[in-house]
């Protein structure tokens, strides 16, 4: 069903001259990011303080809403210190490079079912494009680390590059499972497939990937990887302040620091958008297929039509809501989890996330073959049986290798000072 607003805006936009259309779409890309980033900073500080039983910034403006503006003014008027022994070109270009990927990915987020609601282009290679550009984000951090001629910064940059390489793979494999199930790399066709019946059987609900078994596993892996890619807690080792002062942006002050800050928040927003589009049903409000519901329950037909109208015409609002949800998850994770140790980070990426993602990928292929030949129910049975077989096989292999190597677990003991129970921590070499 096409809403009035939809038809109106479509006719209105197509009647405009080409350059105005291009300008509108470019603004659709830039404005949400630029407007929302200060709001994000406020949200993070308030929500974080709420979770930690503090008050947070509440003095500037109502509920402290103008605090980011005050912060921006402060950052702008701070003394801009440039260290003397730096590689000037690299030092100055690094913040700009750090800001680039967020905006470049933002251009492909689908804000609604209309073609012009995808800001720049609904590219054929959407997911691959997202992966490619997100992997470029590390250059900003690495170059900042190299350019500022500081050992701590260099360590931060090195950590960032190693971390990115490790988590890029798991992220790619988790998305590959979704691409395999969709049969397309396009963001809009992934959203479209999520409007189909759930598990190919439940007609009334939408098939949001987070509700499917393989999609849920992919979603968890993608969530972890996207936190790692944006260098947020608990994966913020490139700027671990207890070890590296401030890591890669130790030598940056004033607006150059603010640009790094902005890049991080813009990347958070954009990755939340990608997560929403791929796993949370994109721009759909609720996972209910309204036209099917109105056929099943005719008394609700009016309500269903209203909901569908809302769904189509305010798609950008629902998408924004899902982005906000993603950002709240980011903040929630930051408030909950302590920072990982570096070997834990590497071990999590390579030993847990990557094998699970690859297994998930293979099981999706199995599910697709079986459900096409023998029907959806058998497909799901084969998926779960395959998962159990893989799990048993994996645990057998790991225990066998542990037995073959002998005792590889080093025991470290901590004696509690108050004479409590002796606790041991297992450290994997």
């Amino acid at each position, binding site marked *: 069903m096409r809403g009035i607003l939809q038809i109106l805006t479509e006719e209105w936009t197509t009647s405009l001259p080409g350059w105005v259309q291009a300008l509108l779409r470019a603004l659709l890309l830039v404005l949400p990011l630029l407007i929302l980033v200060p709001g994000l900073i406020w949200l993070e500080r308030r929500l974080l303080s709420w979770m930690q039983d503090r008050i947070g910034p509440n003095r500037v403006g109502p509920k402290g809403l103008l605090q980011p503006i005050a912060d921006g003014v402060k950052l702008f008027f701070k003394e801009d210190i440039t260290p003397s022994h730096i590689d000037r070109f690299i030092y100055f270009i690094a913040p700009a490079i750090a800001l680039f990927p967020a905006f470049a990915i933002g251009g492909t987020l689908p804000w609604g079912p209309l073609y012009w609601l995808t800001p720049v282009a609904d*590219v054929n290679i959407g997911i*691959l494009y997202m992966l490619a550009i997100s*992997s470029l984000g590390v250059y900003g951090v690495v170059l900042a680390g190299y350019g500022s001629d500081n050992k701590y910064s260099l360590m931060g940059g090195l950590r960032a*590059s190693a971390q*990115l*390489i490790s988590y890029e793979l798991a992220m790619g494999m988790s998305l590959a499972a979704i691409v395999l199930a969709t049969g397309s*790399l396009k963001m809009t066709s992934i959203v479209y497939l999520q409007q189909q019946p759930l598990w190919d059987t439940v007609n009334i609900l939408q098939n949001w990937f987070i509700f499917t078994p393989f999609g849920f596993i992919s979603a968890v892996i993608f969530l972890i990887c996207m936190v790692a890619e944006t260098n947020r807690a608990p994966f913020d080792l490139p700027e671990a302040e207890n070890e590296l002062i401030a890591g890669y942006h130790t030598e940056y002050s004033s607006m150059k620091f603010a640009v790094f800050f902005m890049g991080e928040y813009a990347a958070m927003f954009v990755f939340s958008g990608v997560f929403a589009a791929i796993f949370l049903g994109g721009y759909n409000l609720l996972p209910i297929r309204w036209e099917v519901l109105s056929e099943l329950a005719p008394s609700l037909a009016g309500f269903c039509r209203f909901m569908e109208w809302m769904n189509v015409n305010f798609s950008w609002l629902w998408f924004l809501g899902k982005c906000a949800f993603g950002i709240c998850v980011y903040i929630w994770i930051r408030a909950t989890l302590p920072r990982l140790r570096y070997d834990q980070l590497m071990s999590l990426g390579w030993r847990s996330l990557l094998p699970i993602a690859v297994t998930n990928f293979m099981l999706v292929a199995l599910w697709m073959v079986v459900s096409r030949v023998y029907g959806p129910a058998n497909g799901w049975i084969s998926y779960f049986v395959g998962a159990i077989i893989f799990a048993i096989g994996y645990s057998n292999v790991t225990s066998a290798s542990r037995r073959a190597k002998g005792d590889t677990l080093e025991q470290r003991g901590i004696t509690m000072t108050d004479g409590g129970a002796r606790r041991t921590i297992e450290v994997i070499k």
Partner: protein
Amino acid sequence: MLPEQITPGLLVFAAMGGIAALAALGVILFPNAVRSALCLVLNFFVLAGLYFTLGAELLGITQIVVYTGAIMVLFLFVIMLLNLAAPQQLNEKGDIKKPLGVVMGLGMLALILAQLQVAIGKDFGPRSEANFGTPEVVGRTLFTLYAFPLEIVGILLVVGIVGSILLAKRKI
């Protein structure tokens, strides 16, 4: 006014080609290893842009994912880890490689110019079929016509991975 042959697409292509050539020059002319590596990153990135303008989307994006996003990050990692300073040590003198390289470069230039001489003065536009480089077409071709070569490449890659693990691990 612009001549009819020069389309906006061609201008974008030419600009990207120019940047790619300059970046490639930068790779060999900068004495600083990090600058060289950065020029290579720029070169790979612009090369991907060239592929896009020619309609080979998948090739272009794979170029960015593999080379710009992964391999060059590792390159930079290694260069920064070794902290290659002392550019004067990299200067080789009295080496047969230099004149040999000049001769080979000239030969390469002659080859390219010979190719160009045929094409110059004709239609410049890309002459690929519609959806030539899209993922669907590439995938279909790879998994039907070139299935065996693809499998062989896959086996080669697996052997490479196992081999690198064997080399990297002191004790298996």
